[in-house]
């Protein structure tokens, strides 16, 4: 929570058109800048951040240090790539901008994105570094883009000249699959000299790490044990409920639309747990003071995806249930098979099963609470019988056609 005024120096030279960082070096840089601005303003509400460009027509301050994040993001919009970077002038202008900050109590920091080759002499950079150190300005250097032994040496010597008690850092980001912002999140530039980091940075890091390593439910149990536990408990509850519902469905197998009922029941119960989960995750997010937008979105997406996929899930559960049940009770297994067969609309097998009137009546007799003399059940049996006959006829016809 250090009170700090930061100036970010952006490299918008021609070298930034290269696409070795996706989508382009300049775009990756812009994303990183946005992230840094967010992190700085989050860690202390009185922090200010300013932005200047080092290339283009010349060094130009886009926005003087301000705590208004919207202003900073707006000025990043519509930046043009072109020209050559002037590192020395950029740092000196940044120092001047910081000198005229409104709140003199803020510590001064400059963050430089050095993408293109450095054309200044090492001595000149060291002199600039010493001047920064003398005026107690910290400097963070992000070395990305062009990889050049000489450039690295110059930047390292600049850092050595500025560094006072490890307040300044340098980060080398080679081109690769990871985005520039993701690499920077774990560096001291974000975590603020190892104080333990702002909540924003930590949450963003966790979200990135969680996505890569694939925790259950996409939530790090270390970061948020309550949410992870709630998700796990609700998943187990849902599974138990589905098993109970499947058994109930087997009992109601003969009743017209019984399966549909069970199916819709399960669907609605699953929807309920999905929304519960989503609301639990949103309330957790709200409780936290930091903005976990990434986490929340990921969870909601997951919830939506799961509810979309729920028919398949229901089937999977039923299949597992069947394998469990078949060992115990062959009649129950048959009933389950019947219910599954109905939902998959497998006409042929269904008609075969239904046609076996004796088997059906046996099943019905074995089920508790079902009275064969009940008129509704008699009607049902009759209708099933009628249905099976035309179906058989259709099947014969279709098989004949196939043979032809």
């Amino acid at each position, binding site marked *: 929570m250090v009170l700090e005024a930061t100036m970010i120096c952006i490299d918008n030279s021609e070298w930034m058109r290269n696409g070795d960082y996706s989508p382009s070096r300049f775009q990756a840089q812009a994303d990183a800048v946005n992230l840094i601005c967010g992190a700085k303003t989050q860690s202390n509400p009185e922090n200010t951040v300013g932005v200047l460009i080092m290339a283009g027509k010349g060094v130009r301050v886009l926005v003087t240090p301000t705590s208004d994040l919207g202003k900073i993001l707006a000025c990043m919009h519509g930046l043009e790539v072109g020209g050559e970077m002037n590192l020395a002038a950029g740092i000196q202008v940044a120092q001047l901008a910081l*000198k005229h900050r409104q709140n*003199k109590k803020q510590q001064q920091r400059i963050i430089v994105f050095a993408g293109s080759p450095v054309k200044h002499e090492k001595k000149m950079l060291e002199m600039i570094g*010493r001047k920064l*150190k*003398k*005026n*107690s300005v910290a400097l963070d250097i992000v070395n990305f883009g062009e990889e050049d032994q000489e450039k690295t040496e110059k930047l390292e010597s600049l850092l050595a000249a500025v560094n*006072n*008690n490890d307040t300044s850092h340098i980060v080398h980001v080679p081109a690769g699959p990871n985005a520039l912002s993701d690499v920077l999140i774990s560096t001291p530039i974000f975590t603020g000299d190892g104080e333990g980091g702002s909540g924003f940075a930590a949450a963003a890091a966790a979200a990135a790490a969680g996505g890569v390593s694939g925790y259950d439910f996409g939530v790090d149990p270390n970061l948020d044990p309550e949410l992870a536990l709630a998700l796990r408990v609700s998943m187990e509850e849902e599974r138990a409920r589905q098993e109970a519902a499947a058994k109930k469905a087997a009992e109601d197998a003969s009743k017209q639309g019984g399966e549909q009922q069970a199916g819709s029941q399960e669907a609605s119960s699953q929807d309920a747990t999905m929304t519960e989960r989503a609301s639990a995750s949103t309330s957790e997010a709200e409780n936290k003071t930091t903005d976990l937008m990434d986490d929340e979105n990921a969870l909601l997406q997951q919830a939506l995806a799961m509810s979309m996929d729920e028919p398949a899930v229901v089937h999977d559960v039923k299949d597992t249930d069947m394998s469990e049940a078949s060992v115990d009770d062959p009649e129950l297994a048959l009933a389950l098979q019947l219910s599954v067969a109905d939902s998959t609309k497998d006409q042929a097998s269904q008609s075969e099963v239904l046609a076996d009137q004796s088997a059906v009546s046996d099943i019905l007799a074995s089920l508790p609470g079902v009275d064969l003399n009940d008129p509704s059940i008699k009607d049902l049996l009759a209708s099933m019988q009628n249905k099976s006959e035309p179906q058989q006829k259709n099947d014969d016809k279709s098989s004949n056609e196939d043979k032809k």
Partner: protein
Amino acid sequence: MACLHDHSCEDHDCSSDWSLYKHIDLDKVSALNEATTGSVKSVFKAWEHRLNTSGEHLESNEGDPELIVFIPFTSDVKIKSISIVGGADGTSPSKMRAFINRDGIDFSDAQSMQAVQEWDLAENMQGVLEYQTRYSKFQSVGNITLHFPDNFGGDTTKIHYIGLKGEATQLKRDVVATIVYELMPNPSDHKTRAETGGGFSHVE
């Protein structure tokens, strides 16, 4: 102007004269171009310990003798004179420039601005030299900035003790110490007299 003590210090209690260090706001003391952050606080101590060179002291960065020391006070003070004990072997400062009641002076400001008063210092290893101020200009000092642009040829500048003689006025500068920020207005905090069931409003 330097003055030597014309009495032996055992008779006269010098330390009570040099007690302005008690009115310094030590937390907010800062220095520019110091080698170790925070070492500047060690130079403000009692008169008896001014020659104690074994502990921490203020040292500038290698190869750069310039130093700026910012000293805020807890209340307005009147400064009569200043005493500086420097280091040996040419590391003592040779010049001193003072600025009054200015915040956030850095090296470029110090070089361009006109100082309130400037002194040429001598090496003061025994700690008996004191430099008098133009008292009329140092009547209500909330903070003072001392700029030491040069030394006697050493690689760095070392200062072991800065003493201030004068009196404290008990007057505080108008500083708002605690501010409660209100992100959203809370109506209960802003009850008008009418709402509390109140009195007659009168227009004068």
